[in-house]
């Protein structure tokens, strides 16, 4: 059973931000599919909770200024039903399809998946590989942080207690770009990720450009394999180079042993999955 707490259910983001600005820093609760489980297990015991479940005007998907943006209340299911997401974030759709189960997808928000800060959050590697930015809003200010800089440690983020994620956006995709995601887990649905890999790259004149390799569940935070990216950028990708970059990505990650897999296995799967996904992206663009 859940412990007791004060619960407020504002219906506008302004009202929610006003509540969050209070000195006692109440806990914002979005879909609740992580946090209520945590609270029931005694992991978090907030005195005061601000539910975001009834906020109006926060559940939307938009295309503007060359970017695709989703509102703070947009659910994981919403990603599966939108043509613009399919066109400009195939890897994100891939992640949404293997995200928990239908009921959780119908409730969990994209912003909540980011805000919770889990290294195994499935939407984060594709969003990071897509160069997403996170717009945080407080009662008095708004700022946009690159998702790659959003996580500061295991379940630690740059979000201040009085801020909410108002939107997450990324640049539209053009011809000659490919993005892919693979979730390694025991099953396709309803499983926690062992290793998640997202790759995004472009091929221009036979050479790789804008390479992004984001790794999930193999470090305290979702991380980019920047050295591996640099090995590929500006180069014509052949099998030997892709193999070397994949090996480099496996070296850069920092996995742990846990109930789902050993660190050694996770590192091995980073090697295999980066090689596979970069190869597939290149293949797809040739």
């Amino acid at each position, binding site marked *: *059973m*859940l*412990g*007791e*707490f*004060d*619960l*407020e*259910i504002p219906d506008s983001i302004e009202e929610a931000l006003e509540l969050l600005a209070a000195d006692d820093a109440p806990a914002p*609760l979005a*879909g*609740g*599919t992580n946090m*209520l*489980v945590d609270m*029931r297990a005694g992991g978090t015991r907030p005195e005061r*909770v601000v*539910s975001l*479940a*009834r906020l109006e005007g926060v559940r939307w998907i938009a295309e503007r200024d060359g970017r695709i943006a989703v509102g703070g209340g947009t659910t994981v*299911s919403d990603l599966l*039903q939108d043509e613009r997401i399919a066109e400009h974030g195939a890897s994100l759709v891939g992640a949404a*399809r293997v995200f*928990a*189960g*239908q*009921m*959780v*997808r*119908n*409730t969990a928000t994209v912003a909540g998946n980011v805000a919770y800060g889990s290294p195994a959050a499935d939407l984060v590697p594709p969003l990071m590989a897509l160069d997403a930015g996170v717009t945080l809003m407080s009662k008095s200010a708004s700022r946009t942080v690159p998702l790659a800089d959003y996580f500061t440690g295991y379940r630690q983020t740059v979000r201040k207690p009085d801020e909410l994620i108002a939107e997450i956006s990324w640049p539209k995709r053009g011809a000659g770009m490919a993005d892919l995601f693979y979730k390694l887990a025991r*099953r*396709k*649905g*309803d499983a926690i990720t062992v290793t998640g890999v997202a790759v995004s790259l472009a091929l221009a004149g036979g050479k790789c450009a804008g390479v992004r390799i984001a790794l999930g569940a193999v470090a305290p935070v979702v991380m980019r394999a920047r050295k591996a990216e640099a090995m590929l950028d500006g180069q014509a990708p052949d099998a030997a180079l892709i193999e070397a970059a994949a090996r480099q990505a496996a070296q850069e990650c920092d996995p742990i042993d846990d109930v789902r897999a050993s660190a050694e296995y996770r590192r091995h799967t980073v090697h295999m999955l980066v090689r596979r996904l970069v190869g597939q992206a290149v293949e797809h663009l040739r």
Partner: protein
Amino acid sequence: MAREKTLTLKINGRRETATLPSHRTLLEALRGMGHVEVKSGCEKGDCGACAVLVDGAAVDSCLTLAWTVEGRAITTVAGLGDADSPHPLQQAFADTGAAQCGYCTPGLIVAAQSMLNDNPDPDEDDIRLALGGNLCRCTGYTKVFEAVGQAAMAMKARGGDS
């Protein structure tokens, strides 16, 4: 602020009033109000036994705070049909023998209805994707997929009846 409030919930088309504390989940509230067709399983969003429709979309009622769904249309499996007048999904589950112990069945039917609300013409992949959050420990999935496929066809033949 108060930690208890009296609210009106719209359950299976009827308005019901209950006085509930803020930490009460929709699952606990529904069962406490006699809607015991909603089952309690894992209580952490893994098993789907507690699924109900909120405004037509299936959610895990164990991860929904009752206060947050005030005024929304809540539908349990019993709101879809009953033994005298079964919903096509309920009929198809019975016809194909898609239930063994039956504990997961209410959640499976609710999850299937949620999918059909968006997609009246699902293929097997769509059905598997939609039911990925419902666990059956008697391992009866094959007949469940069959039942949902049959029900979808029956509903289409009847002109989108739900």
